[in-house]
């Protein structure tokens, strides 16, 4: 099955989104668009406001300014569960599985709730759970308790649960963090597989290989602001981006 082509109408729009904590603007006037079916990466040095941005989109933070639009309608200020119902799913950087449930139940609960396309009764939810676990490669461990999983597997479970909510847009927060090279390749496959089912993906990553590997577009954040956006290899050679990551001296050194 070929990659779905992104359409022209923006599915997700951020306009001048601002979030302050105390006096500090963690996210400051961020504006960009994500088209349906696209796969976009958000990169930036630590503390650039990437996770805060995801929290704003998924409704865990209230905006101090700006607007977020989903399929044309504003979703700023909506409760997180309603945003989930609209079809926006997410994973957390530090995974948050439901510890007392099994792997299968964790996946199923996504299908029990989730977007309007999900919301099944328990029996069907478990069938969907099995599908999703197969998609992320956890089918063999379905009956295991969560505590028995390795870190990469927990990340898979986190993705599985989010996918089970049948999202139209999936927000992934540093899924690759802490994985070795082999595990990253496997995770890349998993993200590709998820994307192939028609889900728009917006992911935060530090690992450049991932950004260049699967993202069609990259957005660079620094100090809460958009520094650059465009195709990954173009963006990564942008002087301002290099400066943000490595500092002024290195940027000068790397100048051709």
């Amino acid at each position, binding site marked *: 099955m070929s990659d779905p082509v992104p359409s022209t109408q923006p599915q997700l729009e951020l306009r001048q989104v601002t979030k302050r904590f105390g006096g500090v603007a963690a996210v400051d006037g961020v504006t960009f668009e994500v088209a349906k079916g696209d796969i976009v990466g958000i990169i930036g040095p630590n503390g650039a406001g990437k996770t805060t941005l995801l929290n704003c989109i998924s409704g865990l933070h209230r905006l101090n300014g700006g607007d977020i639009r989903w399929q044309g309608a504003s979703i700023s200020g909506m409760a*997180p*569960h309603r945003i*989930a*119902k609209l079809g926006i*799913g997410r994973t957390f950087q530090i995974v948050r599985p439901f510890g007392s449930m099994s792997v299968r139940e964790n996946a199923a609960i996504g299908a029990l*709730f989730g977007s309007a396309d999900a919301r099944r009764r*328990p029996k069907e939810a478990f069938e969907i759970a099995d599908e999703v676990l197969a998609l992320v490669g956890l089918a063999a461990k379905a009956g295991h308790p969560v505590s028995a999983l390795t870190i990469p597997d927990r990340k898979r479970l986190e993705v599985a649960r*989010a996918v089970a909510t049948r999202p139209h847009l999936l927000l992934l927060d540093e899924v690759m963090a802490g994985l070795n090279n082999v595990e990253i390749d496997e995770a890349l496959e998993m993200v590709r597989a998820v994307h192939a089912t028609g889900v728009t993906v917006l992911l935060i990553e530090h690992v450049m290989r991932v950004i260049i590997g699967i993202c069609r577009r990259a957005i660079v954040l620094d100090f809460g602001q958009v520094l650059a956006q465009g195709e990954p290899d173009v963006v990564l050679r942008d002087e301002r981006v290099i400066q943000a990551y490595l500092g002024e001296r290195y940027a000068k050194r790397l100048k051709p």
Partner: protein
Amino acid sequence: MLLILGVIVAGYALLAPLTSLDAAQSAGAPLLADRLWFHIATFIAMFVVMATAWNIIGGITGYAAFGNVAFFGIGAYTTGMLIAKAKWPFLAALPVAPVVSTAFATLVGLPLLRLRGHYFAVASLGVGVAVGELVQNVEYGGQPVFGGASGLFLPIYAVDNRGLFFFYLMVLAAALSIAVTWWVLRSRFGYGLIAIRENEEAAAVIGVNTTAYKVAAFALAAALTGLAGGIFSQWNVFINQDNAFPIEYNVQMILMALLGGTGTVFGPAAGAVLLQLLIQFLGGSLPVSAEIPFVSDTARPIVAQVILGVLLVTVVIFVPRGVIDFFGGRTRLSMSYLRRSLRETSL
């Protein structure tokens, strides 16, 4: 093994009272056909309701409410007032108790459930205490509305074999609580509650309406607890702040759920039976209560409390997951288990 044991005990407890007093006594089982036993058993059943109900909000949802006795008292006074002042028949007044308790829980729950951890526990405790005080003392035109300090007296319910009637009624309420818990644990609602307990933010982003679910769990617990209170008011014929809003019930419900195993269907019920029997045994009100050596009769209830306290402390330290873990066969009560749980929780 547990199942068989449980069925036998339950069967005996439930069916034996139906035998006549004479038959039971001649068969050598005086305990069960005895009026005192009915009283104790009804009391135990009442706690089964309360502990199981608390478990819904405290054990399954993870919001440890410390003031659920408020719902018990509200239920008791609702039914009590309807019977005593408005002259309603008991069976009509009883269903109103859970309704009023639920309404109150919804009203109070909306602001309260926004709080977490300690703050929620303390606030719910505060509500529990305040409601008791208010109900006892509020006056209108110089007269106490709810009977004041002298309490509320209800007419005795005219039915044959009253002890038996209220015993089975309370057991019915207990069965209802357990059935509700069983349903919750396998429903979408229950999964949502567990998700809230395990990680509220994650639950929200996968689409659980956390506010609505929490309030619903709270209201459900209130309804069942209120039902127990309603039955209590007519059964006891007299209610006042001391017996309708006893602060120690709050802790007892929680302890029972903890002892038996929170988050399970039968755990709180098992805990309720065990703990209440223990309290009664130590207090000397069971026919088989033993003599505590070196202790005078007047000192006995005090010593009983000390023993209870020591037991409580010991259990909390050594058995954090509850006894049902043992009976269910999942773990065995051994030194290594005790040592392990100690290591998990101590510094």
